[in-house]
């Protein structure tokens, strides 16, 4: 945790004194920080209880990064080498990240671990990323160094240490060669499994184009804006939306660690109140968590009237949950029109579409069931349709200028409005490739150069409506879980064979995702089956930190493609259709049947 800066007991100001507000024309991140360093704005870090622990003007961030850069370069790294950095929400991470920009290295933000007993899975995950990125140096805060060392042991990483240890290295006397306008900027690992992580190579062109579009066209940043963020810096929304875009627009940011938010979500709202924050983003579940915990907290004394952009992204937007937040916090000055829906992904750097500002979350209600699932049409219901037969989706707005969205069918043909298909995108900040993964890259680009997101959706009056995120990805509580990671861990259990397991997500009535694991069970005795079920649950909890529903199904319940690949989509459909059930399907004795006739 950063030490408090001596003599600085107040956060950096919201507005610069004389430095002009500029959001356009930067061609590299380093150039953007150089410019921001001419003012007084900067970054602030808060403790889990909301006390200011460090206030660092961009000028000081730049000075520290320039001090660290030649020391990093002294670690016998070559230009373009990857430097992995565990992305704790801290000054050290930002210093190391920008030191790489100045020294000509490509930073690779690494995730943090969050669940009880999750160390082994965490080490494995870090190792997969270090290997895939071909990292040559790796940095972590002191208390994660041991895990990082374990992860780096069988890799090409030559230096593992803290930023303090880097600062004790001698500085190289060669002149620094910052990453230039045609160079890479960083590698974002936000998708892929533990064994085959997929890193998006984000270029300087992509980050400056996307940050400019977000600032100018998306949220229309202006003098007087102040960002508050608890989003992790190893995810695109936290890093691009709430860290790099503010740097490229000289906007002050108040940071709360994600784990602090998870413990005390109100600190987020208190920081907005105290610092008159105007912009803050969260997945739906963050708003939901606040509303749920607010029940007995009349003592909070919140004033959220300054909050003009309450951005939403990162998972399926659930309008009902957001309405719950508005209902709870309207008395504290929150205006539901501040909600801003958006759509994007790491492969596009971050943002692709934004809803209009100051209008809240607009939704589109359509018929569920056959029209949606079989005919793949988004049909507006007749006025007297019962609520149970409809579904409401958020409208995520239109592509920003320079970006385009098309809905295509499986054969790649463009679909008309209100036809549901694959969301394909184009724009100036699309990745050119996953880092060193040509097959994965080829799999996501269409022949005519569009990125096939794998997400499903439709267009209505030009607005994008997302009906389902990437088909196999499981997103629970805002976290991406790759089903393979769960399946492989479960297959290591002695009673389970490879290919016996499928993990997928199903939505509950409130559109929250829930993990379902189907295991083809070769056991017959009930105690052994129950013991295995418990082990599967424990494995999922250890690997991903989530609860799951385990179905012990008879052999040959799962479906494989002609090339022998497990079809999770088919398994999921069979499960939803009730065609996959428990192996233990003995008839229930009549005495145990609930007496429906009498109760009804």
């Amino acid at each position, binding site marked *: 945790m950063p030490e408090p800066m001596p003599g600085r007991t107040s956060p950096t100001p919201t507005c610069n004194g004389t430095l002009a507000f500029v959001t356009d024309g930067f061609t590299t991140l380093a150039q953007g920080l150089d410019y921001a360093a001419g003012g007084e704005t900067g970054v602030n870090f808060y403790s889990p209880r909301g006390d200011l622990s460090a206030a660092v003007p961009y000028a000081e961030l730049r000075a520290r990064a320039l001090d660290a850069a030649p020391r990093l370069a002294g670690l016998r790294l070559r230009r373009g080498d990857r430097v992995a950095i565990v992305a704790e929400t801290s000054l050290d991470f930002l210093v190391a990240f920008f030191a790489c920009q100045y020294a000509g290295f490509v930073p690779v933000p690494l995730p943090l671990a969050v669940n*009880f*007993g999750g160390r082994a899975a965490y080490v494995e995950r870090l190792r997969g990323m270090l290997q895939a990125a071909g990292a040559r140096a790796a940095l972590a*805060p002191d208390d994660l160094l041991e895990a990082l060392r374990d992860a780096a042991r069988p890799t090409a990483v030559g230096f593992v240490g803290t930023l303090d240890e880097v600062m004790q290295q001698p500085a190289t006397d060669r002149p620094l060669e910052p990453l230039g306008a045609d160079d890479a900027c960083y590698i974002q690992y936000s998708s892929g499994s533990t064994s085959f992580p997929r890193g998006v190579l984000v270029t300087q062109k992509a980050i400056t184009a996307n940050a400019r579009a977000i600032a100018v066209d998306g949220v229309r940043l202006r003098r007087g804006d102040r960002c508050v963020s608890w989003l992790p810096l190893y995810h695109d929304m936290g890093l691009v939306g709430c860290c790099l875009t503010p740097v490229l627009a000289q906007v002050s940011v108040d940071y709360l660690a994600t*784990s602090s938010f998870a413990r005390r979500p109100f600190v987020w709202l208190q920081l907005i109140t105290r610092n008159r924050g105007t912009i803050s983003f969260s997945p739906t579940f963050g708003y939901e968590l606040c509303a749920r915990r607010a029940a007995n907290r009349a003592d909070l004394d919140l004033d959220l009237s300054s909050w003009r952009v309450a951005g939403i992204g990162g998972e399926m937007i659930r309008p009902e949950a957001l309405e719950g937040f508005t209902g709870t916090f309207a008395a504290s000055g929150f205006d539901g029109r501040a909600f801003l829906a958006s759509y994007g992904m790491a492969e596009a750097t971050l943002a692709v579409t934004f809803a209009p500002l100051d209008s809240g979350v607009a939704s589109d209600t359509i018929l569920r069931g056959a029209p949606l699932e079989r005919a793949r049409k988004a049909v507006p219901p007749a006025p007297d349709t019962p609520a149970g037969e409809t579904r409401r989706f958020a409208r995520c707005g239109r592509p920003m200028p320079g970006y385009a969205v098309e809905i295509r069918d499986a054969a790649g043909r463009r679909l008309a409005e209100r036809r549901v298909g694959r969301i394909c995108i184009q724009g100036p900040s699309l990745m050119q490739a996953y880092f060193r993964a040509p097959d994965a890259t080829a799999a996501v680009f269409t022949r005519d150069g569009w990125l096939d997101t794998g997400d499903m959706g439709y267009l209505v009056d030009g607005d994008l409506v997302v009906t389902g995120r990437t088909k196999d990805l499981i997103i629970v509580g805002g976290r991406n879980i790759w089903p393979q990671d769960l399946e492989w861990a479960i297959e290591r259990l002695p009673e389970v064979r490879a290919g016996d397991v499928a993990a997928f997500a199903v939505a509950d009535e409130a559109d929250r995702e829930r993990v379902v694991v189907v295991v083809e069970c070769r056991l017959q005795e009930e105690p052994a089956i129950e013991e295995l079920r418990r082990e599967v649950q424990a494995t999922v*909890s250890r690997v991903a930190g989530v609860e799951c529903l385990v179905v012990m199904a008879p052999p040959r319940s799962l479906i494989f493609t002609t090339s022998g690949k497990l079809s999770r989509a088919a398994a999921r459909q069979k499960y939803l259709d009730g065609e996959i059930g428990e192996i233990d399907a003995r008839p229930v004795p009549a005495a145990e049947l609930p007496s429906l006739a009498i109760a009804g």
Partner: protein
Amino acid sequence: MAQQVEPQVLALLERYNPKKIEVTRETALGDDLNIDSVAAMDVVMEIEDMFEIDVPINQVADLRTVGDLVDLVRRQVEKD
């Protein structure tokens, strides 16, 4: 203070033990009690408030059993 840590932590964990299994120092927080990552943060917050300590969050992944958690709390209580 340090002596009371274990019974207090055990009492707190009872609310995260819907199946009412017997909780000892050897009980695994994730595997046996099924405390997921969201509930883990709730447990951490309650422990911080109860003992007026800060739990170093990056050590959470190293906490496998109830005993690991009790020992960590004890160390933090003695430090403050």
